[in-house]
């Protein structure tokens, strides 16, 4: 029997299926048309925050959700966003008030970061009074319960599936740093904005973050920029033919010819810190030292934006990470180390004696290290752990360890487990 047809068909099949599968999760929502809070006054927003039980929709999103407000400032406008975090699949909802509707109405989208599921969602905020659902106007009598009820669906489909949340208890009030990796999250998790962009910094608090870690490198002409990898590559940038070390390119070349995966420019460190200080409620920035070179220019920018934050009445901690002995040498080469907060990823001895760093950040694979963490905290140091993405370990580290914060690519999950902790 002639096998040539089979071989040729096999070759044709190879050509067809040999192409790489592209995963996409475009968020079907572009944001509110009108800035502001709509009908959601400050007192209404504060009363809404809490842990809610999920009834309708629990099969998709789990049996409880965290509800928390955040905001984004753009110029003179402040837009308030309601985030909801579920314990399954690193799910989050990002919703905004609907000023054009004469009630407490919200609309937005949901995403599951562990897969490509996303969709539209819309809700109304009501209260249950004497067993009856009524419109909520900001006043709750004893025995009244808030109910957020609405609809969701997949992708761009009109929301038709019921999702009902009933207020259960307040958020865990313990202070805890929820630090988002790569300025908010990884590009590979198909977030609506690219990692290490100004846009993801503006999104970070909607993903539950209270602070961010950003990756700093130098361009060929010495401009500090945000970029994680050593090289230009298709994981991080749109195809343009350019490759090789990012340090080989000037800032002019990068800003004019290179776009991150979702179309954003590679930001300078100054643009990133300006966004943190001016646009967001983020209170902590960890400058991860990815560069090889002098630390003085980074120190100057750190000082500038600490002062800018203070001028704006904002309490924003900006710290330079010391992840390696090379970075330690760069730090020690600084002529003046005053007014230069740092974070040490090195061992406890170097952190205590050589650096006297106020923050220690061991990697999570070293375990909870309860005794070491307690000892460092007794000395007045803060202890963060990085980069923890496993849901089971996030839950265990929050409930059983003593860290002051967790750096994660899934700040939504950290937020869920922290705020639901009892």
């Amino acid at each position, binding site marked *: 029997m002639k*096998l*040539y047809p089979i*071989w040729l068909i*096999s*070759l044709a*099949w*190879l*050509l067809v*299926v*040999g192409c*790489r*599968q592209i995963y996409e999760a475009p968020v079907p929502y572009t944001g509110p048309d009108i800035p502001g809070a709509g009908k959601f006054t400050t007192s209404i927003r504060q009363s809404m925050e809490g842990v809610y039980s999920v009834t309708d929709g629990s099969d998709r999103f789990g049996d409880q959700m965290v509800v928390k407000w955040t905001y984004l400032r753009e110029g003179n406008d402040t837009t308030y966003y309601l985030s909801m975090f579920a314990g399954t699949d690193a799910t989050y909802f990002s919703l905004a008030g609907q000023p054009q509707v004469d009630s407490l109405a919200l609309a937005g989208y949901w995403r599951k970061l562990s897969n490509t599921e996303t969709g539209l969602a819309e809700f109304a905020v009501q209260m249950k009074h004497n067993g009856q659902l009524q419109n909520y106007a900001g006043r709750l009598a004893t025995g009244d319960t808030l109910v957020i009820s609405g609809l969701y669906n997949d992708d761009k489909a009109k929301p038709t599936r019921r999702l009902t949340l009933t207020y259960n208890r307040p958020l865990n009030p313990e202070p805890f740093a929820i630090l988002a990796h790569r300025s908010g999250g990884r590009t590979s998790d198909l977030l609506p904005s690219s990692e290490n962009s100004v846009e993801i910094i503006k999104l970070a608090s909607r993903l539950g973050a209270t602070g961010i870690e950003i990756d700093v490198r130098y361009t060929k002409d010495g401009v500090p920029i945000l970029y994680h990898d050593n*090289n*230009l*590559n*298709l994981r991080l940038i*749109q*195809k*343009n*033919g*350019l*490759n*090789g*070390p990012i340090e*080989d*390119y*000037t800032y*002019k*070349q990068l800003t*004019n*010819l*290179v*776009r991150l995966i979702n179309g954003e420019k590679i930001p300078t460190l100054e643009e990133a810190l300006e966004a943190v200080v001016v646009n967001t409620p983020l209170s902590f920035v960890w400058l991860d030292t990815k560069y090889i070179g002098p630390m003085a220019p980074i120190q100057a920018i750190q000082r500038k934006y600490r002062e800018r934050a203070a001028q704006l009445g904002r309490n924003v901690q900006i710290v330079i990470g010391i992840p390696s002995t090379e970075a330690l040498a760069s730090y020690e080469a600084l002529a003046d180390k005053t007014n230069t907060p740092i974070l040490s990823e090195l061992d406890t001895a170097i952190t205590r004696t050589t650096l006297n760093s106020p923050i220690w950040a061991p990697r999570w694979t070293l375990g909870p290290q309860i005794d070491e963490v307690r000892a460092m905290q007794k000395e007045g140091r803060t202890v963060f752990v990085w980069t923890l993405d496993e849901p089971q370990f996030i839950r265990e580290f929050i409930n059983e360890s003593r860290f002051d914060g967790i750096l994660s690519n899934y700040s939504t999950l950290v937020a869920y487990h922290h705020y639901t902790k009892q």
Partner: protein
Amino acid sequence: MQPRIRILYWLIAWLFGSLGARAQQSEIDSLLSQRGPYAIVVTAGTGLSYYSTHLGVPPTLEAARVSRFGFPGTIRVMWYPDHRLRVGLETGWTTLYSYRGFIAGERSQVYVSTTPILLMFAMPLGWLTGTERSFARRMSIMGGTGVYIVRSRLNYGNIVNASTYSTGWMAGASYAQPVGRRFRAAVELKWYDAVASENAAFVAEVHLVWRAFSW
């Protein structure tokens, strides 16, 4: 490794494994008391390439002009055994694409090329004794896998030359016409696919095939 890529590699292995096994099961092989003849065949050629997948031109570029054509060069060294499956190495060079334009009045140019380094398998479609009188025997299919060195050259403000490695594969077919005892002239159509860097080119070449050594 992604499941589809894994399937791809297994399928290639199966394809050439089955072809080789079938070739070695031929009557000729089973009757011969001595193996051979063997040959080392060197192929060199050039032609035209066309960049055949999407390319990204920065939206900031004004009056952008794109070229997808290039002039490739190929060198291949193959071992021709006494059965149909041949194995060897291929390298060379080809332009993938280039574009140029202006950014705020300043000229900008990007040029992208690649050097494949591929483990090659090839097989004539027919196998007859005696002289090469069969069209099927002169036709070959080939495939290979390996690494592409993808180079970029940016000229904007200053020149930046950079390169990266990309895994990839190729597939092709050729027709070789005898022009002497040791030489053939061949035409070849092939597809270069540097999967990891998302570059692919269709290449048409003329080759000079030289049976350099035989024993």
